[in-house]
């Protein structure tokens, strides 16, 4: 990071041209490289100190240099498949960041299009044998872009969420209210959504149909059964992810019901945002602050209850919390604590015990129709969760469950992607919709909030009879005691 070593373009060619007959005896040790021309040392705080890759801890340069350009990931990359352009591909993104790090490309702004079009879906890393962490490399590149994470709205939104979550909630509700009263344009004009860092939210909640005026946290907080006071042990702690909390309250409540039904009693952890919003806005230090607060909260509870799993019901959020350690690789104090927290995190998708599930009641099944499962990127690529939810769904829905072709093709929601890259996003979505249509699914089960928004948005326009539902919601519906389920 400090030394500026550059390797010239001709290294390799020189190697072959001036070969003399001396046989070099030293076996190369692949020593970590300190080269970094991407950003100035003063900016280091805004960046990750190192990346935790499948092959071990690596500096950015070494992580990017691990890509040997084999191209094996290219057909997994949605943006490449749609554009056919190398700079808009996984390999291209890695190479551009590498060139920037090496100082052979001078200005990060040349890579702006390439970096900002990445869905961060991680499909490339799944396809890559070396598991080159392209999404993290892309984010590092983005953080070097001028002004990235510094715009007023992003800063204000993250700060409000961080320091005054209730104020954030207030603004959000105000936004919803304005919308409800039929003045959405006014809301847009007032810039409320922009202020909240969710410029596309206006459209998003259109897709949701109705918006909550009581957020999940407010409801759960009032439920005495979820309080830690007076308990000696807990089986789980529910972490309200922002999506279920602020937008899909029903999902949050369904998750809690499910947890109670199959995993005994637990608590609501009273968490902060996981920090992903700040992270993806390029505000790494804010993301670290969110993480620290969540870790602290967890540690307080752990001191009382010992080990317990932290359950989140948005895969993006769960995947991000599982990667907390990477935020603190240069911080000897927080690193082990982050690792311990991360180890406790579980996605609801992997947590529901399939063997305890009943066969669902006929009427509920009929309502659900043909069921299929969409692998949310942060579940399959981010956490390697593929089998668990399928096992559960097969058990519940039996023959009504169908595999979705290309189920791990990103839906194009990808956090804020749908809002920042609407054109590309809708083309990514189209392919998802075509696949859904090809199996004539009525119910598409997802595990992340942005997929829920995005797929429903697409279905509403193209196949209004089908719907996307969150895993928790469907499981809750199918196993509710009043629905005749609930007995295994």
């Amino acid at each position, binding site marked *: 990071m400090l030394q500026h070593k550059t390797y010239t373009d001709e290294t*390799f060619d020189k190697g*072959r041209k001036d070969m003399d007959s001396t046989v070099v005896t*030293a076996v190369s040790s*692949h020593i970590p490289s300190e080269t970094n021309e991407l950003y100035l040392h003063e900016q280091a705080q805004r960046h990750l100190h190192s990346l935790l890759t499948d092959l071990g801890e690596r500096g950015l340069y070494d992580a990017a240099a691990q890509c040997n350009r084999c191209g094996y990931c290219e*057909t997994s990359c949605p943006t490449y498949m749609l554009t056919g*352009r190398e700079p808009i591909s996984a390999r291209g993104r890695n190479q551009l960041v590498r060139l920037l790090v090496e100082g052979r490309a001078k200005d990060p702004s040349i890579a702006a299009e390439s970096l900002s079009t990445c869905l961060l879906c991680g499909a490339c890393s799944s396809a890559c*044998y070396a598991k080159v962490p392209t999404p993290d490399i892309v984010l590092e590149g983005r953080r070097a872009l001028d002004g990235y994470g510094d715009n007023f709205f992003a800063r204000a939104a993250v700060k409000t969420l961080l320091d005054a979550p209730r104020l954030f909630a207030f603004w959000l509700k105000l936004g919803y209210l304005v919308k409800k009263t039929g003045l959405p344009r006014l809301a847009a004009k007032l810039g409320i959504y922009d202020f909240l860092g969710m410029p596309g939210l206006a459209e998003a909640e259109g897709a949701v149909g109705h918006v909550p005026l009581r957020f999940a946290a407010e409801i759960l907080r009032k439920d005495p059964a979820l309080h830690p006071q007076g308990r000696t042990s807990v089986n789980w702690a529910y972490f309200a992810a922002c999506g279920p909390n602020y937008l899909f309250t029903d999902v949050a409540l369904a998750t809690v019901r499910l947890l109670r039904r199959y995993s005994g009693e637990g608590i609501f952890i009273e968490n902060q945002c996981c920090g992903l919003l700040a992270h993806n806005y390029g505000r790494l230090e804010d993301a670290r602050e969110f993480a620290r607060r969540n870790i602290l909260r967890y540690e307080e509870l752990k001191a009382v209850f010992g080990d317990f799993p932290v359950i989140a019901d948005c895969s993006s959020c769960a995947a991000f919390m599982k990667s907390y350690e990477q935020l603190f690789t240069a911080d000897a104090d927080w690193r082990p604590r982050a690792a311990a927290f991360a180890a406790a995190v579980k996605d609801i998708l992997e947590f529901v015990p399939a063997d305890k599930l009943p066969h669902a009641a006929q009427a509920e099944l009929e309502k659900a129709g043909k069921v299929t499962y969409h692998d949310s990127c942060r579940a399959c690529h981010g956490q390697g969760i593929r089998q668990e939810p399928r096992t559960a769904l097969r058990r519940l829905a039996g023959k009504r469950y169908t595999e979705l072709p290309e189920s791990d093709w990103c839906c194009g929601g990808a956090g804020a992607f749908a809002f920042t890259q609407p054109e590309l996003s809708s083309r990514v979505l189209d392919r998802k919709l075509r696949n859904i249509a090809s199996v004539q699914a009525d119910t598409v089960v997802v595990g992340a909030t942005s997929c829920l928004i995005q797929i429903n948005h697409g279905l509403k326009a193209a196949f209004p009879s089908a719907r996307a539902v969150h895993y928790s919601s469907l499981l809750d519906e199918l196993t509710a005691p009043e629905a005749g389920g609930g007995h295994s």
Partner: protein
Amino acid sequence: MFKTDRISALKPELEAIVGEGNVRTEEAEILAYSYDAGMAKARPEVVIAFTAPEQVAPVVKILHKAGIPFLPRLAGTNLSGGTIPLKGGAILNLSRLKKIRQIDTAARLALVEPGVVNLELQKALEPYGYFYAPDPASQKVSTIGGNIGENAGGPLCLKYGVTSDNVEKLEVVTPDGEVKTWSYRDPGPDLMSLLVGSEGTLGIVTHAWLKILPIPRYIKTASASFNSMDDAMKAVTRVIGDGMVPRALEAMDSVSLDAALNGKESPFPAGTEAVLIIELDGSDAAKVTRELDDVKKICSSSGCAFFRVAAEESERDLLWQARKGAYPAMARLAPDVLVEDGVVPRPRLPEALRQTREILSKYKLTAGLLFHAGDGNLHPNMVFDRRDIQEVKRVKKAGYEILKSCIALGGTISGEHGIGVEKRVAMNWLYGRAELDFFRRIKEAFDPAGLANPDKILPVASDARGEEPPAGLAERASLSPEARNVVDELRLRARSGAPTAVTGLGTRLKAERIMEGAKPLDLRALRGRAAIDRENLTARVEAGVPLGEFRAQLKEAGLNVELPDLKGSVGGLIASKVFPGLRDVLLGLEVVTADGELLELGGRTVKNVAGYDAVKLFCGSMGAYGVIIAATFALSAGARRQHAAFEEPAAWDAFEPDTLHLRLKRALDPGNLLNPWIYRGLAQ
């Protein structure tokens, strides 16, 4: 780097064809197209993306007129620098041309655009019960256009042939922007096959008609592990020598296996040094099972430690995943990997492997060995870090030595990855001056302006300086006295400018066709006994030998050549191309040019993509491009397959030369000395 911006002025014109946003010169685009999966790098000046195949020809015309170099690019997974724009110019990005236009199971053809990903085609064919045989390990990403550009192969090519054998017809945009459609069946010299493996230096494929085959009813896959590589190779030689034609016969060493397993539990016992994957197929279940038993017997008597037949599809998938993942998995070991692609005659595999390993240990390199054992095609994957200059040097040196050892063992420098820029130097060792000159003439006939993927395949001046050829490498064929005579005679006639009528047994060429003034050259004397290599399953035979006689000699040795019964001499059959399928078993040719130069083309290996496929060019050349004096054929050991009675086309020499045929003739025989009546209009 480029002093003048030659692109801006053309941009509006180009955009009018391909649309706005598809002519890009931004820095990111330029950088992203300055590398491919190989090691070389160079910056293009512009990247032009296409949305319809029809756009290619007009764009090429513009570039041609402006004198701007160009090269077609697809997935950029080639391993020889084939898509590196050495002279700048334009990258023609064809990756959005990915329509499968037609699947015709009755005609057994699929018509596709070049950007179709190999695996996507396989997926599209599966519901019909068909498959497309070439299956490179990169098939998940590499495309039909790129496969054609490199003449890619895969495990299945042992039985079903490489890309070239599986292409029926091509639509090609020539370097000056003309659209041509060529099939190997067309009368006259085979231009289609010349295009395959030409790495974008002779033209750009815009549509391909591919041969598709019904998926065999029964497929059995087995794996055999050995504690020594030598034992594994022994088993390979014996399986093939026994007359079996496995669908695939692949090998990998423990380094590759470990990388591909990626921490998963190995299905093989500890101490495994080499693993063979053997796959058999057929429509007769009993026969497949019987062959599998035979394979098992051979393996166990060759020291196999563990033999297992995959019980179900998932187990089979796992084996193939390990095999096909072995190359990309090298990325786990180090940031860079250099893969060599030499081929040796199969029986020499153990020697080649031993030498390769010696070279690797001499240079202290880690490498995974991976190879298409059945074809004698070796891939040592050397891992290194290109940021370590010393290591890069060692890798390069080791790579060159490995190639030299392949040449010395009677093999070639590339079986499927192509020459590109990275193996250009080695062309100097493999070929003599005459062959290289011959290739150059082919290139000039197609691309006189030198704009299509310049400086690829053929060595440039600096290559000769770069690395000395090892002494005594290119050993020449030993000619019989009769053949010597033919060479001398042609040399004399070339000097005096006397036209020649090349005559064989007179089976097809009737005396009245022979133009007045052309002096007959009788090849009947070239009738020596075939030189049969029992172990390698190849035979060299002189051109004047009648096919029937050749067959009889093979039969004595318990071998045969898979051709229908045809009349006439071997040379005549090749030159007249009455049976277009002959090219499938033809491996090498010795040809005398109009100047009296002796060329050795192709070789004794079943795979060879070094240089242009001139062997196939001579199929149908009717004696007008050169005089064939000997040929090398691939043989088979088992019982001869059934051949439908073959009906010869009536007018075998009724052919309308294409402009490219004429240009080739002008380049190869400017004085129209050989069979001059065929290109009567040449002078004009």
